Structure formats: structure tokens, C-alpha cells
């Protein structure tokens, strides 16, 4: 995957004013670098080679038996490789639902989700698990660390599962913990760490297999201001240093400043889509 940023999307990324400018999928495709039409997709879906995600007409309806709740309503957008995208919106606007579809933790009711140029919506569970292991890192709102493992073990477990570099995953886990500022806490169990520290362990874990994308579901929701700042700065640094695409959810408008792109959801629909948020 080419991690070079598409000039058409980022040419004016330093301007805060341009945050307000919205762009549609059609516009993006027309101005995007190397566009292509995937033969197996519907005719109106266009895939760009440098897009990590292409979300098209994604719908998710929860059927409780008595009522049907439409959590996502024909959501379409694309995410370029290397982006730092913020998904914002009020409670119950569909942010987490959207991220879970993108993280392959849930299946949409209809629509198409293309990840790294491949349709992944209908993949069998085993292939989805493998994709989560190899190409995606997911950071949960509630840290979601395994309580029986130390910080170091939590981080290297997915690396052990992938087992690419022999036992090199242990060293890499140490490096990642250093990177998130927890080099001295490797042997600590989650309950011995603060919320912010646990979240940073979760971020390190999400990065152990060098994923193409890191998905963070309100990573600062349970953290105090200082810890939140630390976590967000960690994400920015990782995006900058490792060139990993980061998509995070936040309900705090102040977090816009960490993003390059922005999607605002309202009632399951995209209410606003901005490019070029200020880093």
C-alpha cells in the first residue's frame, strides 16, 4: 500500500478555514489521484488505489423485535491512506457503529465496505479475524486489556498470534511501549495502571502487527484532561512517525485539532465531511 498522501486531498491541509469545506465521494473521485472502477462493485462505486477505506451506502439496522433502529443510513465516504480522521457526532449518532463496521467487528445490514481495495463486507468470520490481526488495530473506549496479562504480554499477544518474526514480537512490544511512554511499566498488570496508561497499552497493542489502520473508539472517553491530551498526542505522533492511518471517534469538539479530516454523523447520516483539519 502506497502511503503517499493524495495531493488533491491534502494540498491545503494546513488551513483551518478549509475544515469547513465538505467533499462528496463523487467529487473526491473526480479530483483524486489514480482512480479506478472495481469490476466487482456496483457501477457507481469507484475505488482509488490510495484509499485505505471506501465506504459506500453503508446501512446498519438493529432489529430489537419490536422496533427497528437505523444506526447507519446510507453512509458513504473514503479514507486515504495515512489519514488521521476524526469521526464526531452526538451520542447515538452512529459513530461507534460505523467504526465497528470498519473494524470488522460487526456486519452491516447492507452496503459495501472496501478495505485496501478489497470488498470485505461478506468475508467469512475467519478471514475477518485474520484481517483484524494483520491489518487493523482497534482501540476500545474501555481499554479492553486482558486482565491476566501484563502490559507487555497484552501488547505482544497479537504479535505472537501472527508470529511473523519468530520471537521478535516481544522486542517490538517493548519498543511500542517505549513509544507510548510506558517503557517502565511493561511488567505491570492492567489493574496496576491508570486509565490513561491502560489506553496507551491498548494503542501499543493495536500497533504490534504494523497495521494499515488504527481505529480508536473514543479513546479518551474515560480519561481526565491530561491523560486525554497524552493519548491524543500519542496518536498524532504515531500517525506522523509510523505513517499509520488513524481513525478515531471523539465527542469532544476540541479533538478536531488532532485530525486532518473530519466526519460528523447525525442520526446515522453524514452531516458534515471536512478535509484538511489542522494538525
Amino acid at each position: 500500500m502506497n502511503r503517499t498522501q493524495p495531493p488533491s486531498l491534502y494540498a491545503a491541509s494546513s488551513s483551518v478555514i478549509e475544515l469547513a469545506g465538505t467533499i462528496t465521494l463523487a467529487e473526491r473521485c473526480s479530483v483524486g489521484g489514480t482512480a479506478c472502477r472495481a469490476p466487482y462493485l456496483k457501477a457507481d462505486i469507484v475505488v482509488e488505489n490510495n484509499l485505505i477505506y471506501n465506504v459506500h451506502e453503508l446501512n446498519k439496522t438493529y432489529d430489537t423485535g419490536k422496533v427497528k433502529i437505523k444506526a447507519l443510513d446510507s453512509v458513504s465516504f473514503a479514507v486515504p491512506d495515512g489519514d488521521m480522521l476524526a469521526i464526531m457526532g452526538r451520542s447515538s449518532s452512529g459513530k461507534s457503529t460505523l467504526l465497528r463496521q470498519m473494524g470488522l467487528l460487526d456486519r452491516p445490514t447492507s452496503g459495501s465496505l472496501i478495505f485496501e481495495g478489497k470488498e470485505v463486507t461478506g468475508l467469512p468470520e475467519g478471514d475477518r479475524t485474520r484481517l483484524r490481526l494483520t491489518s487493523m488495530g482497534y482501540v476500545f473506549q474501555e481499554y479492553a486489556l486482558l486482565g491476566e496479562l501484563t502490559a507487555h504480554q497484552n501488547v505482544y499477544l497479537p504479535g505472537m498470534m501472527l508470529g511473523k518474526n519468530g520471537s521478535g514480537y516481544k522486542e517490538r512490544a517493548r519498543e511500542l511501549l517505549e513509544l507510548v511512554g510506558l517503557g517502565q511499566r511493561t511488567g505491570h498488570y492492567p489493574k496496576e495502571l491508570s486509565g490513561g496508561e491502560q489506553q496507551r497499552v491498548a494503542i501499543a497493542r493495536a500497533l504490534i502487527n504494523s497495521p494499515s489502520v488504527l481505529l480508536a473508539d473514543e479513546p479518551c472517553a474515560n480519561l481526565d484532561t491530561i491523560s486525554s491530551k497524552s493519548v491524543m498526542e500519542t496518536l498524532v505522533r504515531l500517525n506522523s512517525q509510523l505513517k499509520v492511518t488513524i481513525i478515531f471517534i471523539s465527542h469532544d469538539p476540541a479533538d478536531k485539532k488532532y485530525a486532518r479530516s473530519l466526519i460528523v454523523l447525525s442520526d446515522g447520516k453524514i452531516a458534515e465531511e471536512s478535509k484538511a483539519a489542522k494538525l
Partner: protein
Amino acid sequence: MKTLKVAGFLAFTSLKRGNFGVLLLTILILVLVTLNLLFVPSLLRGLVHGADGKLKDTFAGDIVIESALDNPLIPNLNTLIPKIEAIGGVVAVTPRNNMVSEMRYENERTSGVVYGIVPEREKEVFTISKSMVEGDFLASGDRNQIVLGIQLAGAGNPGIELYSRSLKKVHAGDRILVTFGDGIQKNYTVKGIFRSEFIQTDTQAFVSEAEFETVNPLAANRASSIRVKINDTADSAAIIEQIKQLGDGLRILTWEDYAGIMRSMTDSFQSIDTILNVVNLLVAGITVFVVTYIDVTNRRRQIGIQRAIGIMPGCIAIAYLLRAAFYAVLASMLASLAFLYVIMPVEARYPFHFPFGDVKLLIGFTDLTRAIFILMCAAIIAAFLPVWLALRIKILDAIWG
């Protein structure tokens, strides 16, 4: 291999950081189950081994030679016995004559078989002479003396199995009246009373060969049976074949031909053993199922997180199965050690008393490995079900309920 490595890692850390009390209790229950799995087969094996030993050492010998002709007596003992003794593997040979008889003492009477024996030969084939509880065993040439099994004499011991049918209070030195099957009556002094702990032997009476010939002169140089003791390592089939060459009129039996009652009894024990094993395995299976089910329910979120971060469901399942296998292996090892080094020595010191002798628990390597294997299979199958159910839950439901 990677899957197994990660599964082993997950199993190890969950055991290491899990609830020690639950672990201990689970192991304890499985230890008890394993002990049950080991106990009945070992009792059965001990029972059969002990009964077979008593049968050979006090009742039948290794090989029994009888007459195959109309005349129930084997002739020409003086020439036949040396020939049998000359066969390789034969340790000792003793001829026996017998006659059904009735015995009386005061107002009590009982019936049994009186054997005419050669005491010195008898001592080499059987161990009855070492089981005297009163008086002495016969010596060659003893006349007017009889040795009784305790089930005939009673010896004032109401605790014996056939006391009510015995002469009840006969002791060594008492005189009893014996009426032989041919109608001859004779008074005998009881020289000794033996207790072999094998009820079929303890209902026998012995007089010397010389004494028996006074009652039945036809018994001279003849025997109703010849009992042969062979080496433990000798090939009994080969010896039997050689004995058959010694004359056409001989019917050869082995001690196993006399073990019919024991075989039927052990078959019944086998059935009981099977039923108990099934119950035990159900207990083991349900225990592991409940422990795993509770554990999986408590860790549903953890399992969801593991799946979310890319740990393969098969890997998670194997981790639980490894843990169940660990429970089973540890429990069966502890149970085996307790059985071999505590229960068996204690039982050997205070053995179970059966009508065919004291029974010592006996366990073979096969029984041990079988018990361990069966327990492990039951544990793994029982653990699989709750894990499989947990892995069918959607990831998001597992994490957030």
C-alpha cells in the same frame, strides 16, 4: 504450531492468574473421581489375583490329573508319579483320594470331603500346612488323626462364614465321628485345624494316605486325582501335552478349569465396575463443564476482546481444552500417587476380607493410563461445549453484553 503456542500461553496465564481456590477445588473433585476410577478395577484385579492364588495354592494346584476311564481312580501311581516329576518345569506332585463323608461332634453334624493325602508331598504343592490355626498338619504315617478346615470344625468362632453348618466347637485334640460314603464309621482325633481363607478349601478334611487306605483299601497305589505344581515361568500347555503322552486314560485340567465360580463373580464385578465408571465420568464431565461454563461466562468479555484483536477462535478454544486437560492430568497424577503410595499400602496393612481370602488392591500400568486417558477425554469433551457456545456469540455481544 502458532495456534498451539498462543493457546498454551493463554491457558498458562489464565491458570497462573486465575482463582486459586477454584483451581484447587476442581483438582480435588477430579482427584476423587480418579480415585474412584482406580479403586474398583484395582479391587477387582486384587480380588481375582488373590482368589486365583488361593485356588492354585490351596485347592487345585496348577494342573489336575484325573482318570478319564470308567474307573475314577488313576492306577499305577508308583510308576506314574516319577514320570510326571521328571517333566521339565514340574516342581512337585501329590496324589489325592477322596470320599464324601459325614462328621459328628456331640450334637452337631456336618458333611464334607475327606481327602487321603501324602503329607510330605502335599506340603510341596499346597500351602495349607502353613495355615494351621490350631494343632499341627499331618505327618506321614499318621493314623486315626484328621485335620479339619475351619469351616467344618467351627473352632468356636461364630464369625466364620459357615459356622452354623459346622461342628461349631471342635478344637484340636477333640474326637469326632466320621461316616464315610461307603458306610464305614471311624472316630478320629482332630490333629489340627487350618484356615486357608479360601472357603472351598476350608470345607475340606485330610487324613494320611495310610489312614485312607484302611477305610478304602482300593486306594492303594491309586488316586482319584494327582495335583501338580509347576514353575511360575513354565509353559503349562507344554507340560500338559507331555503328561498326556504318559497314558491314554488321563484327563488333564488346569487350575483355570476350577475357577468357573470366580469367573462368573468377576464378570459381575466387571459390570459393576463399568456402571461405576460411567457414573464417575459423568461426575468428572459435569464438574469440568460447570467449572469451564462459569469461567467462560465470567470471561465472555475477555474472549470477545481476544477475538476482536485477532486471536483465532480455534486458538481460544484450544486454550480452554488445554486447561481442562491440565486439570485432568494433574488430578490423575495426584490421584495415582495417592493411590500407589497411600491407599494401597494402608489397604495392604488392613486388607479387605472376602470368603476366598484377603484382597489386596492391585493396579497395573494399563489401568492407570486408562483412567488418566478416560478422565482427560471426559474433561476435554466437557470443556469444549461451553467454549464452543461462547465462541458462537457475536464479538460485540461478548464484549458489551
